[in-house]
Structures are given as C-alpha cells and as structure tokens.
C-alpha cells in the first residue's frame, strides 16, 4: 500500500518581551533558578494577572504579517491540568476566541517552488516552568523562571505532506517571526518549540486517518527524524492490519524513536472556561492599521525585490534574504560598491564561507559592509585583481584595516604601468627561451595555450599584481 502522510504543526513561539505576559518579572534566559519567579508566577493566593501590551502587539503583528483575520475581541480561558511546573493548576490560554484567526503564508520548498500553507489560528498563552527530574533525593526540582513567559501558539492546517515540507514550513515561519522581530527565534533556548500531528491514509484517499501527536520536538533536524520514524511506525501498524491509537508521543532524540506517554498524562480533559481574572482584549481598526504600517518588508517581498531590482537569480535572492541582518548587510555592500551582482557573489562566497569557518553569524562579522564595499570598489576600478582581493579580505577579517589601508601597507596595488610590466615580461621571455621557440613555430590554437603559460609566469613573478590585460597585450606585441 502507498501511504500519504498528513501533518499539521503546532508551534509554541516565545515572544520577545522584557517582562512576562501577566507579571512584571523579567524573561531573560539562563538566570539562576527561580530568581525571575515572583508572586504572580508562583501563583500566590490573591495575585492577579495584568496583560503585557507588547505581547498583544506582537500577536497582532503576526496576524497582519500572515494576512490573517485579527480578532478585534478575543478572550482568555483557563486550561486546567495539574503539573508541578504549573503552580496555578491552570494555564491561561485562549480557546474559543483566539487573537489571530485564519491566515496563510508562503513557504519556499526544497525544490525552489513555493506553496501557501494555511494557518488555522494563533493564540496568546503563558509558558509553564521547568521540571528537572534528576535525583533530588527522589524528588523533582522545579524552576519557575520560564513560567509566565509570553507564548504565541501557531497552529497550521494539515497541509504538510512530508518531513522536508515540515522543515521548510518551520524555516519559513522562523524567518517570518524573526523578520517581524516578535521572537528571537533561538531554538537552542527553546524560543520555538514544535508539536507534530501526524496521520497516514492510503494515497488518493480524502478521509483523515487517526493521528498521533508528537510533543516538544525542538530542532529542525529532530522534526525531520521524528516524522520519518513516526511514518514508519504507523505504516507498519496499518500494514499488519492494526489500528492507530490517538495518543501523545514523545520523541527521544537519543534513541531516534517516538514512544507513548503514560496513559494517565494522555487523559487530556482540560475543562476550558473563560478566565474570570482577565477581561476581553479589544482592539480597534486604528490599532491594527498602525501595526500594519509599522511592519518591515517581509522575507518573500524582500526576496522578490532582490531578484527584480538587483537582477539576482532566485537562488541568490533567497540566500541573501534568509535573515534580516544578512539582507541588510548585502544591501549596504551593493549600494556602497554599485555592483549588486559582484556584491552578491562576495557576500555569498567569501563572507558566508568565512562566517561558516569561524562558526559565527553575520551580527558578529568583523568586516563591516562599508569596508567590504570598499574592497569591491578596488576590484571594479582595477586597482587589484580578484585574486589579490581575497588576500586583502583575509587581512580585513584579521582586523588589519580597510581595503585601501591594507593595499597600501602591503603594496598590493595592481601594476598597470607598461614600463614596469615590460621589464617583467622581458625577464619571463628570456628565462623561457624554449617556450618562446615553441610559440613561434606553433599554430594559432597552441599559441593561445602558450600565451596563457607566459601570463601565468608574469603573474607569479609580480606576485599576482600585474594587470593581466596589459600583460597579454605586451606579450602578443613582443612574441613576433
């Protein structure tokens, strides 16, 4: 049997705020345990939540960014369950009336095609604390620093068909939210966590199979592996005549498998009801319009502009618009040197190459965009060759100064003066009398090869600084 995989993703996105969604505690990552957990976060009796305006603004930004219907009236609900990292015994979330309704956004697939993936809804809620199950004399340790961190839960339609598409969707979502500036998108710190809903059905069938939900998959790579594993598991069960149980499973990255969570925890019955401690959030058209006007250029728009305005290939445009800092860097270089194609090439090959080797990111790049533009300017005005430029770039990376400073200090200026070049050409011809003889006896095709040889020798002798065009002219003139 040929199976089709149907996947929907729920992403929990930590919103970039200074303080928590319902309290004035800080949200800084990595603080000592419980130093950022105060009375509201600890659910002390009588504490009341007060909503953070930035969290609302970020949610609206997301809604506008995916062209969704932003609900002018949305309501918080209590989601009831008991777990020690949720001291209130309920999570404040949104159930009946989420702040962001239906929308969609464009996902660039692996093969370069694009597809719109539907977003069912996105709602505001608070994060829980962390439970540490290492041995504390047979007890669990609870850190409530994360409790109350604002989250936007983004629920996709079951539009995704395989692991590669799921990863493409997550990458596009990551790009979108970091462009919007509503989250730092730091996966390693848990800023973007993913639950995968997955079911199988015979190819061609339109009815949905029974799904399993895989909880808390925290990297793009693990999403891919968890889906592969779960597909195989469900296909095996179905092919041997079994039935899929609707359940919650955990992905274990160490063993590369998913396993069922205990049935007790799976008995999800959250008994949602409206949160009496919070009033409905009401926003008006003017607010939505103001947010809409404040949106930056989004990834898809930027990519399209890069290819139409700068004449870049689709691939180059998508690499360079991958993150906002990279896109801004490229644009500064392109504007600074006036040649977008060479700028694109340098940023993609030399700069990204160096960043990869140094295992760092564009934000920490030691060479500024202005300095890189300065270097490219010197290639364009023939002061240096492309080859020498790489050497200069290396020195710039080491912090030796601007391109002009390095070229002057190391005497790397391209030699175009025919008098000086003539001396070198004469030296080369004198030292290679055999090749000169061969050249004179050779036919047109073979002559070209030998000219190449002489040019190479001149470049070598001039340490790459000779202007190859003038060397060529001189050689042709002399070899008669």
């Amino acid at each position: 049997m040929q199976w089709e995989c149907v996947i929907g993703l729920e992403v929990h996105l930590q919103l970039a705020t200074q303080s928590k969604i319902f309290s004035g505690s800080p949200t800084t990552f990595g603080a000592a345990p419980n130093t950022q957990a105060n009375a509201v976060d600890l659910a002390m009796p009588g504490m009341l939540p007060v909503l953070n305006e930035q969290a609302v603004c970020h949610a609206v930004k997301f809604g506008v960014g995916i062209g969704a219907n932003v609900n002018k009236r949305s309501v918080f609900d209590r989601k009831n369950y008991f777990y020690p990292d949720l001291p209130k015994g309920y999570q404040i979330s949104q159930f009946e009336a989420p702040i962001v309704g239906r929308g969609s956004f464009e996902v660039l697939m692996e093969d370069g095609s694009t597809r719109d993936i539907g977003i069912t809804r996105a709602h505001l809620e608070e994060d829980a604390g962390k439970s540490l199950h290492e041995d504390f004399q047979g007890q669990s340790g609870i850190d409530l620093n994360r409790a109350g961190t604002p989250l936007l839960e983004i629920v996709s339609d079951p539009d995704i068909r395989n692991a590669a598409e799921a990863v493409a969707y997550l990458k596009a979502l990551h790009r979108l939210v970091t462009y919007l500036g509503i989250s730092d998108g730091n996966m390693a710190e848990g800023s973007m966590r993913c639950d995968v809903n997955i079911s199988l059905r015979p190819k061609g069938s339109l009815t949905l199979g029974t799904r399993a939900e895989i909880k808390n998959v925290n990297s793009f790579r693990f999403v891919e592996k968890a889906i592969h594993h779960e597909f195989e598991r469900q296909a095996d069960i179905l092919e041997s005549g079994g039935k899929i149980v609707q359940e919650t499973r955990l992905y274990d990255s160490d063993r590369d498998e998913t396993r069922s969570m205990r049935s007790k925890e799976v008995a999800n019955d959250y008994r949602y009801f409206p949160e009496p401690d919070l009033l409905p959030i009401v926003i008006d058209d003017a607010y939505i319009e103001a947010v809409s006007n404040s949106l930056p250029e989004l990834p898809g728009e930027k990519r399209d502009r890069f290819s139409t305005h700068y004449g870049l290939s689709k691939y180059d445009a998508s690499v360079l618009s991958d993150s906002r800092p990279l896109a801004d860097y490229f644009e500064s270089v392109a504007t600074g040197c006036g040649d977008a194609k060479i700028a694109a090439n340098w940023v993609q090959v030399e700069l990204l190459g160096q960043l990869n080797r140094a295992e760092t990111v564009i934000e920490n790049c030691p060479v500024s965009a202005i300095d890189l533009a300065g270097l490219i300017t010197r290639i364009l005005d023939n002061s240096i060759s492309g080859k020498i430029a790489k050497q200069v770039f290396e020195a710039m990376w080491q912090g030796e100064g601007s391109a002009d400073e390095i070229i002057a200090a190391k005497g790397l200026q391209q030699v175009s003066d025919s008098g000086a070049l003539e001396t070198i050409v004469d030296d080369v011809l004198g030292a290679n009398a055999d090749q000169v003889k061969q050249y004179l006896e050779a036919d047109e095709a073979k002559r070209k090869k030998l000219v190449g040889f002489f040019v190479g020798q001149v470049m070598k002798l001039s340490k790459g600084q000779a202007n190859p065009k003038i060397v060529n002219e001189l050689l042709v003139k002399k070899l008669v």
Partner: protein
Amino acid sequence: MKIEQNEIEKIAELARIRISDSEIGQVTSRITEILQMVDALQAVDTRDIEPMSNPLDETQHLRPDKVTENNRRDAFQAIAPSVENGLYLVPKVIE
C-alpha cells in the same frame, strides 16, 4: 440531566479531589440537582444573545512591557516546604 457516579469519579480525579465511597452517592445527587437548575437555564431562548465572557462592561487594561519585579527568591523559598540549589522540590513526577 442526570450525572452518573463514574463521571463524578472522573471529574474528581481531574480536579485531584478525593471523594470517599461513603460520600460519593450524596455528591452525585447534589451535583445532579445543580445540573437540573442548569437545565432550567438552558430552556431560555438565547439565540440572538452573544455569549458573555465577563460580567463587567469593560475591556482588558494593558500594562507597559517593563520589568517591575525584583528577585525575592529568598523570601519565597523561606516558606516553601523543600528547596535545593534554588529549586522548589516536589514529589517525583516522572517514574
């Protein structure tokens, strides 16, 4: 509407409330009485009425995104039953 005893048991478990065997019959009949009152309310025609999520005719006040709380961990942990290395300790939640 009548509620069955096994439903009461399930709700009690979800709410982490222990109801003894001797109490459960009484609890079931009392909750059934409350549900009968709900039935009476359900009979009212509410077709054109928007659900009310809060009785106050107000909307949510928003606070600026500013850190206003200091670290008072020592004070909070002084009244906790058990702490270690800054963590609150609770009975083990995973087997």
